[in-house]
Structure formats: structure tokens, C-alpha cells
């Protein structure tokens, strides 16, 4: 994947496309990792929640659609 940056100077109208600097590339990697960590955390949270939900539905003896109806 090309690591290009596009920039429009609103004052001059000049548009450029250039390669990331080393610093920008490092920041991009940092951003990506932060996002991945966040998504992973959310995914884990969602899976935990799904497990707990399923357990609660089983405990209540209702289906998911019935639960959705109750919450609507």
C-alpha cells in the first residue's frame, strides 16, 4: 500500500500528493495500532456482552426477538 499524503492549500488552490515523511509514517503506524487496540477491545467487550446476553435470555426463557419486542 502506497503511503501517500494529499494536501490542498485552500489559500493558493495548490494540490500536492507526496510520500509520507518518516515522522508521518510513524504517526500513521501509531494511529493504526491505537485503532486496532480499540477495535479489539470493543470486539472483546461485544463478545462478552453477547455471552452475557445469551445467558440472560436463557435464564429468562425468551428468544432474542422476544427480548427486542420487550425493549421496543
Amino acid at each position, binding site marked *: *500500500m*502506497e*503511503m*501517500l*499524503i*494529499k*494536501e*490542498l*492549500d*485552500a*489559500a*493558493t488552490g495548490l*494540490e500536492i*500528493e507526496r510520500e*509520507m515523511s518518516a515522522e508521518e509514517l510513524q*504517526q*500513521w503506524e*501509531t*494511529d*493504526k495500532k*491505537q*485503532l*486496532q487496540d*480499540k477495535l479489539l477491545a*470493543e470486539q472483546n467487550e461485544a463478545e462478552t456482552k453477547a455471552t452475557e446476553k445469551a445467558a440472560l435470555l436463557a435464564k429468562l426463557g425468551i428468544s*432474542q426477538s422476544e427480548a*427486542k419486542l420487550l425493549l421496543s
Partner: protein
Amino acid sequence: MPTASDLVTDLPADFEVFGQAVDTRLKALNPQTTLGDITYASATANTNTRLGIGTAGQVLAVSGGGVPAWTTTADVTPLTTKGDLFTFTTADARIGVGANGTVLTADSAEATGLKWATPTVGMTNPMTTTGDTIYSSSGSTPARLGIGTAGQVLTVNSGATAPEWTTVSSGGMTLIGTTSLSGASTTISSIPSTYKHLMILVERAYTSSSDYPIAFRFSGDTGSNYNNKTLYGQTDANSYAYFRNDSVNATSMEIRTRTLSSVDAGKNLNVVLTVYNYASTSPRFLQGSAYSMNSGSEVITTQTTGTYKGSSAISSVTALGNGTNWSGGTFSVYGVS
């Protein structure tokens, strides 16, 4: 005895000879003999003296002998030089012409009460060009304000120290910049600080990898200055909505949505993000909405609010692919007056 045709020159004497005594005093009253003669009384009683006409231009004056006499007068003007002015001291006097540019000025210290003096300049004119105006730059110091460009209006500058010509905002929204989305990030820079708010618009955007959230960064600020909360809604078999993505001190303003990796106008990502008081250095309120469909054709809609607490006015906005590349779409920034 005079006859009827005789010229009587001495009538009393003629009558006296005739035999009858008469008063002869009248004989000396009219001594005139020539055209232009005038008569004046002499020292002798009842005896006038003839004064013959003078020469052309002479005037009648009293002679040294105390009698009238025709006299040629001398020129009494005091003027001697080109430009002289006739004035008076205790007698007729002249004031010579002054130096070029001087003006006649009253001066009681002068014998004539007048003098030529350089006029006092009230103000040095700073104007040099058609359309210039004058304002005070400090106290009574005049300064030039050059003419503005067509359509501009006169306003007070930001420091409230001087007038300046300013382009009138058309009101509403003004497009600051627009470009197509590409690369790992796309930035619109050199955003002026002259608007009240910014509206950031992403239309029909898609990325090289699908199902990625996107983010915005202001003025290249990678500091922990972004907070936001998202109300996330997704329609699927379960059709749920909930608050998520509680970002505190994050390094970008994330818009929790999902992108497609291909063009599909009805499904590609659309985002509007408003930054209120973007030019302020206080924490700025952010409000955003996003709509897209993910790769599973599930509609995703998000409402995001947050703050940006960077220390400078926002001068650029970067749309981050946030781990992927932009493949298409339009990115625009509007200034809101």
C-alpha cells in the same frame, strides 16, 4: 465818452472824466486777459490778481509767497520695485514682494503691520493614489489607507486600532476548499480564521479496505486533545443502537462508522462534522453525523459529539483513512459566517 462799440476797460475812470465822480474800486476786480486765466485776491483791497493758466498737468498749489500758483507735482508713490505693495506706516510706505510661496501676514511687530511669511502647514497630506483615504494612526498623525479592492467595505481591524478594507462575507456557508479523497490522509490547509464555524463534509467516500472507521485531525495536532462520544446505530437482524466509542484524550476525532471498498453511491460514507468557534483557542465543540453501509449491507448511522482542546486556532483539517487508504469520495471544508 465811450461809444456803443468801445470796450470799456475802466468804466469808473470814464465816468469820472465825463464829469461825474464814481467809485473806481471795481477796475481791479477782473484782471483776466487770457483763456484759462483765474483770479485771486491780492493784498490790496478790492484788487484781484490774474493767474495765467498753467501748463498741462500742473496743479494749483499755494506757493511759498502764500498765493496760488500752478505747480508741477512730484510722484508721491513709495513703490519702487516690481511686486511692491502700497501700505502705510505713519506715511505712505511700500512693502517689497515676498519670496516665492510666501503669503501676506499681519504682524504688529512690523512698521507696516505686514510681512511676507511661509504659510503654516496644517497637515502633511499622506495620500498618493486615487481612492486613498486619511485616518489617524496615532493622535493627530495622519496616515494613508490605500483604496481596497472592488466590493470591499471599510471596517475596523481586529485590534480596533485602524480602519481597513475587508471583503464582505457572503453570509451562510462559504466553500474554503474541496478535493477528492486519496492516500493515507487528505488535508485541506490554509484555512482562514475569518469565519465563525467550520463545516466539514465527506461525501460518497470509500476506502481500500472496508469496514474501517475514519477520523479527523486538526492542524496536524497528534496530541491527546480529542474527546468524543458516539451514539451508534446499526440495522441488522438485531437492529440496535447504543453509545460507544467513548474517546477521552484521543489523538484524533474518530467517526465510528464503516466504509466500503468500492464505489456505491447509496452506500458509501457520508459525514458532516461541525466545529464551532474553530478559531478559538478554548476547547471547541464538535458535532457530527455519519451514514454508510458496511460490507454486510447493514446501515450504520452515528451521531457524534465531542470537544477539541488544542491550543491553537484550527488552520487545517485532515481526513484520516485511519489504518487504510482513501480510494475515493469528496472532502470539503466550508466556513460558516
